[in-house]
């Protein structure tokens, strides 16, 4: 693989590099430090979902924290999935994949039980009140609440 030929381009295969923690990965846009090639002219953009200390509503604060964890675990899975699509035999990638999948499933269930369901499956896996429809609960994602 990766040998050079006339009239053909090649891209070297990525070697495993120790991933960022999930929250850093989400802020950087990849779990892999070796693929984090930043643009020097880009201004600094603060994470826009930090929980404000002045927030009086504790439920809102807890929701935001849990959503932030869920978002970063889910993103790490998104990025790892693409890696495994081209590296299906990588043992380190696979171990992390199953670890994150389980965390994500549990977080989705917990979020549905405490707040509202993000997926229809989590209405069953989470402790959700079966007497209500539920799917229409919670703000829509584009409304900008960190929810």
């Amino acid at each position, binding site marked *: 693989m990766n040998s050079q030929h006339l009239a053909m*381009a090649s*891209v*070297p*295969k990525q070697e495993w590099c120790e991933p960022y923690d999930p929250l850093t990965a989400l802020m950087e846009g990849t779990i892999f430090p070796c693929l984090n090639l930043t643009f020097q002219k880009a201004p600094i*953009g*603060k994470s826009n979902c930090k929980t404000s200390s002045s927030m009086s509503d504790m439920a809102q604060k807890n929701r935001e924290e849990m959503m932030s964890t869920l978002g970063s675990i889910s993103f790490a899975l998104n990025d790892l999935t693409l890696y495994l699509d*081209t590296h299906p035999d990588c043992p380190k990638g696979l171990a992390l994949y199953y670890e994150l999948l389980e965390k994500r499933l549990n977080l989705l269930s917990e979020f549905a039980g405490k707040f509202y369901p993000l997926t229809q499956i989590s209405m069953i896996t989470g402790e959700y009140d079966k007497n209500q429809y539920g799917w229409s609960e919670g703000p829509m994602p*584009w409304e900008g609440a960190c929810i």
Partner: protein
Amino acid sequence: MFAYEKRLQFPVKIKNTNPDIARLIMSQYGGPDGELSASMRYLSQRYTMPIKKVGGLLTDIGAEELNHMEIICAMVYQLTRNLSEADVKKAGFDAYYIDHTKGIWPQAAAGIPFTSLEFQSKGDAITDLFENLAAEQKARTVYDNLLRVIDDPDVIAPLKFLRAREIVHFQRFGEALEMTKETLDCKNFYCCNPEFDKIKNSPLDKF
């Protein structure tokens, strides 16, 4: 099939109304190198991809591009939701407002409507993978250009995230190209079209 999950892949929480920025960012919804175009490109190409793993990668990246489209739309929505009548008159948003009010509609920054002419599904694995490598680079340049002219930190954070994704996707399409090359005759990669010609004892058969 696709199923909805009620959250964004990257959080968008923009405080300040800014129709000028909204019009620029909209290009990554309906523009030539936008996320809608990216998603349709990969999700269209995957059916005839000869290598199953590459079809799988196209599905996963094509689905991620839908997440990115949603992030861009959420940004445009939040930048314009509190638009006043004065904003509409003074900002460069007036022409858009006449046709769409505050509705979200896919167009390029210069007002050209979204069109499938912006992407290709050529039915040749090598050609399509090069199309995709180029597409990721073009989108990265658009994000570079946006990051150079925008200074609202609420807007910059998601744009930097989206830019980083273009580079990761480029790497994965490069790896998909290598996987595809392995199945072809390296003495002449162009002796046939692996999506059209049936080759006897093709290494593709094992995939």
